[in-house]
């Protein structure tokens, strides 16, 4: 049930974006009786609407508004206007995500202390740590129904997993299992068990995979305290002479500019749109953009180093049958500089359908070297590398000269690998190939990073205001009633898929905001 709030109601918390961060925060606040208006640029799509077809689904859900790119990453050449694969819809990228839900390792909260100075990297310790986050991880795991936590059984292994597992064990890996997944292995929370449909990246038509779109958001709406306004694209955040934010301007579905007043504003548009919005909100008081006295808004963009390895075998695998990512090797996630790099990486099973495989296997390639690989699609197994990439100030989101249909400057995304990223990726490619070779691969193929699915760090959390944009609660150092609530607050990226941590941070931030409101500090 929607709870319509007036545009002039300045008692509401306005949340921009309804993905992993914003969608969860909205529900958590609504459950505590806080009035929330969530503004979402995309439309609302539910399991019945999802499409078991890669390109059609992409057209339905993905963010395809223009962005521009620079830097020496290959994405800038192959997908110059598509630096990221993320979603524009109620529920954000949790509609497309695969559900891999793992905690940071304790040392990863303290990357600078653990890794020491790394030349060219702008490492920093998070102002929070493992112990402080543990109870919020617990709550996040039970909200998402993560398998292998809280007594929830693991998912069964698919064909793709069985090949991966056998190879991994053959070369001596020990921590190999079907993952900690936000996918029901049994009925839970009124949602059914996974039917192994194989279209996790296209929105789960059974609702077996957790997505904010059909869990947290309707739960928040049911309280009467949350109003989600869809197809509402926020253009700028407004502030008064004292430097506090007072509301936001957004374009509604009809393209009309509206103004919603607010007591608190939380930015959760994912790591390109959140800094873009802060930069586009510049004013005479904040000429470099809102919350940007440190100059850090947009900087230190991280995307996990990523890459994939596909193996081709004599006999069929049918990797596309079943969950897209339920399989993991964690042995390389440790920090062990003897391998030639700091930080670590996870290996996770991955499958793409034929259309996406053709687009992403080796973008731009043609001829028989390429087509003979696709000829063996049926006999392919696949895995994805998720490793910690180094934050670098020069990897950043800035405002481009290009404007969107509203006349707002779009985000330019600049990224170049750090030497540590390259060394780690090469290591991971070799280990990935070794896994498949150990069980008889006739050919292995390293695949370059896809347009980024994990986008992090562009409004990072820091103890000292000069090192980052927000403090330990995601609150802007410069603006007391402005928060960042998505993956852009990550200080460092760690080796793990980020969403469980984004959700845990959102749960924690809701507690903080509610108590600050109650005490009158907000």
């Amino acid at each position, binding site marked *: 049930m929607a709870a319509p709030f007036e545009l002039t109601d300045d008692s509401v918390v306005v949340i921009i974006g309804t993905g992993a961060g914003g969608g969860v925060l909205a529900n958590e606040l609504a459950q505590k009786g806080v009035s929330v208006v969530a503004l979402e640029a995309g439309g609302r799509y539910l399991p019945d609407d999802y499409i078991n*077809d890669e390109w059609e689904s992409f057209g339905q859900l993905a963010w395809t508004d223009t962005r521009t790119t620079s830097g020496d990453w290959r994405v800038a050449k192959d997908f110059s206007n598509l630096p990221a694969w993320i979603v524009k819809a109620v529920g954000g990228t949790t509609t497309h995500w695969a559900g891999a839900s793992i905690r940071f390792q304790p040392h990863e909260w303290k990357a600078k202390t653990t890794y020491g100075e790394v030349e060219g990297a702008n490492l920093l310790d998070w102002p929070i740590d493992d112990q402080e986050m543990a109870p919020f991880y617990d709550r996040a795991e039970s909200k998402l129904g993560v398998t292998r936590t809280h007594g929830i059984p693991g998912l*069964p292994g698919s*064909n793709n997993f069985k090949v991966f597992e056998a190879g991994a064990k053959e070369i001596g890996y020990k921590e190999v299992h079907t993952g900690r997944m936000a996918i029901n292995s049994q009925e839970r929370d009124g949602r059914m068990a996974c039917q192994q*449909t194989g279209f996790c990246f296209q929105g789960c038509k059974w609702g077996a995979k957790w997505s904010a779109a059909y869990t947290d958001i309707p739960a928040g709406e049911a309280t009467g305290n949350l109003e989600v306004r869809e197809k509402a694209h926020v253009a700028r955040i407004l502030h008064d002479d004292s430097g506090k934010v007072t509301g936001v301007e957004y374009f509604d579905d009809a393209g009309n500019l509206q103004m919603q007043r607010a007591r608190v504003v939380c930015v959760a548009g994912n790591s390109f749109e959140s800094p873009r919005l802060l930069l586009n909100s510049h004013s005479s008081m904040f000429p470099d953009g809102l919350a940007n006295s440190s100059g850090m808004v947009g900087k230190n963009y991280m995307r996990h180093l990523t890459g994939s390895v596909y193996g081709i075998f004599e006999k*069929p695998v049918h990797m*596309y049958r*079943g969950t897209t990512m339920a399989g993991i090797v964690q042995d390389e996630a440790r920090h062990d500089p003897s391998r030639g790099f700091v930080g670590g990486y996870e290996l996770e099973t991955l499958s793409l359908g034929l259309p996406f*495989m053709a687009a992403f296997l080796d973008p731009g390639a043609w001829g028989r070297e390429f*087509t003979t690989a696709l000829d063996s699609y049926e006999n392919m197994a696949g895995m994805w590398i998720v490793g910690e990439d180094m934050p670098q100030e020069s990897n950043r989101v800035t405002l481009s000269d290009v404007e969107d249909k509203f006349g707002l400057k779009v985000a330019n995304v600049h990224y170049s690998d750090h030497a540590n990223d390259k060394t780690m990726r090469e290591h991971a490619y070799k280990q990935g190939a070794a896994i498949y070779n150990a069980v008889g691969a006739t050919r292995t193929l390293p695949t370059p990073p896809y347009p980024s699915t994990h986008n992090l760090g562009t409004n990072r959390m820091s103890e000292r205001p000069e090192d980052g944009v927000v403090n330990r609660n995601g609150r802007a150092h410069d603006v007391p009633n402005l928060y960042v609530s998505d993956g852009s607050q990550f200080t460092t990226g760690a080796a793990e898929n980020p969403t469980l941590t984004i959700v845990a941070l959102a749960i924690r931030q809701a507690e903080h905001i509610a108590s600050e409101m109650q005490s009158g500090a907000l």
Partner: protein
Amino acid sequence: MIETLSLKTLTRRQLLSRGVAAGAGLVVGAGFVAGRDAAWATEMDAMKPESFATLVQMARDIYPHDKVGDRFYAAAVKGYDVPEEVDFAQEGLEMLDEAARAAGFDSYLAAGWEADRVAILRGIEDTEFFQRVRGGLVTGLYNQKEVWPIFGYEGESYSQGGYLYRGFDDITWI
């Protein structure tokens, strides 16, 4: 994409008598291009049939799959046979023929061996024409549902209840 198969009603002999062979597997006639085996044909809306045949051959040479018939390549490039695209395509194809002549062949299609044609393509691969044709094929060819079974990809599975009872873990050789 390639729906206009009205010529399909012709018998094989009728079809072949109206056209001339072009490249390895194609027949070109007045206003149409067909498969040598007469299993398919498509009428031209805007493009010269010879140009279209060249384009089909070029598409196959970019993404050669021996088990995928010419009709799928024809469907993948049929989108250039419209007034808005035809000039771009025909100019590009003239350039391709020019490159073939420079390599000692009468035309691109007259270069009988794949290796020779691929060498010609390598020479123009940085042109906008080549890159647009190649880029378009990534979806134009591989996103045709009809080609998926040739690669062993089964596509949509929700309506069949997913793979839980249909082989998500049926591997036996590992």
